[in-house]
């Protein structure tokens, strides 16, 4: 899909969760693009209301390799001030999205999430990551959560796989990941 003359977005894979799983791993990621773009519709199959979705690159659980800052808001329409600057440095994975639970208020709705990773194939540079997400709603009187931010995967190793999981039970049926390579 050619967007402008000097940039193109190339479809790599679409993954639909057909049965509840703890983790989804995208492996053997092509190393031929400048950046990776992940788009996702997410659902946790547990009973937790809402949770975070995290990503771990190359199965790397080294805490010092993840450094990111999220800006979360909860019910801003009810007068709550967005919670800014949650420092997730030192965690063993990158928290990048809010995700809803299946059995709570939104049985048929999914969170909306997107993440851009630059320098992903570099063996010299750290990987810069930006992301934004919003949970599911049926009306704005219910819990309204957004989670946005940016950070780094502080590794010189090229990213060849990404593993997604939630802070709850796991990724529910219908969860979908689209992966694109950007030139």
């Amino acid at each position, binding site marked *: 899909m050619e967007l402008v003359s000097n940039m193109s977005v190339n479809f*790599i*894979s679409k*993954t639909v*969760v057909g*049965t509840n*799983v*703890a*983790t*989804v*791993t*995208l*492996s*053997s*990621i*092509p190393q031929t693009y400048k950046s990776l773009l992940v788009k996702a519709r997410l659902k946790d199959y547990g009973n937790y209301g809402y949770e*975070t979705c*995290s990503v771990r690159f190359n199965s790397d*659980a080294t805490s010092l390799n993840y450094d990111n800052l999220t800006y979360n808001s909860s019910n801003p329409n009810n007068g709550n001030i967005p*919670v800014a600057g*949650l420092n*997730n440095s030192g*965690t*063993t*994975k990158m928290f990048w999205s809010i995700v809803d639970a299946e059995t709570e208020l939104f049985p048929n709705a999914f969170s909306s999430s997107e993440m851009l990773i630059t320098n992903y194939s570099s063996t010299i540079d750290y990987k810069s990551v930006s992301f934004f997400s919003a949970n599911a709603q049926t009306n704005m009187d219910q819990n309204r959560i957004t989670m946005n931010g940016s950070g780094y995967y502080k590794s010189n190793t090229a990213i060849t796989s990404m*593993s997604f*999981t939630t*802070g709850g039970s*796991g*990724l529910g049926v219908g969860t979908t990941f689209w*992966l694109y390579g950007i030139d």
Partner: protein
Amino acid sequence: MTTPTKLIVNCETGEESIIELTAEEIAQAEADALAFAAQQEEAAQAATALAALKASAKAKLISGQPLTAEEADTLVI
């Protein structure tokens, strides 16, 4: 108890497979959950402490009492 599974997608071939998590992966997931809960608790405690400091600073300002340096810090932008 059912062993948790993971969906693995090979982006080159499109092949998908569902396999059970290893004992190491389950242990890692449990450690992740504990670490995340601890981090959330720490963040909640910090937020509560900051709110208390702000409330104390506000009350002292209204009543004309001197603020501690910690309370003053909550007012400086």
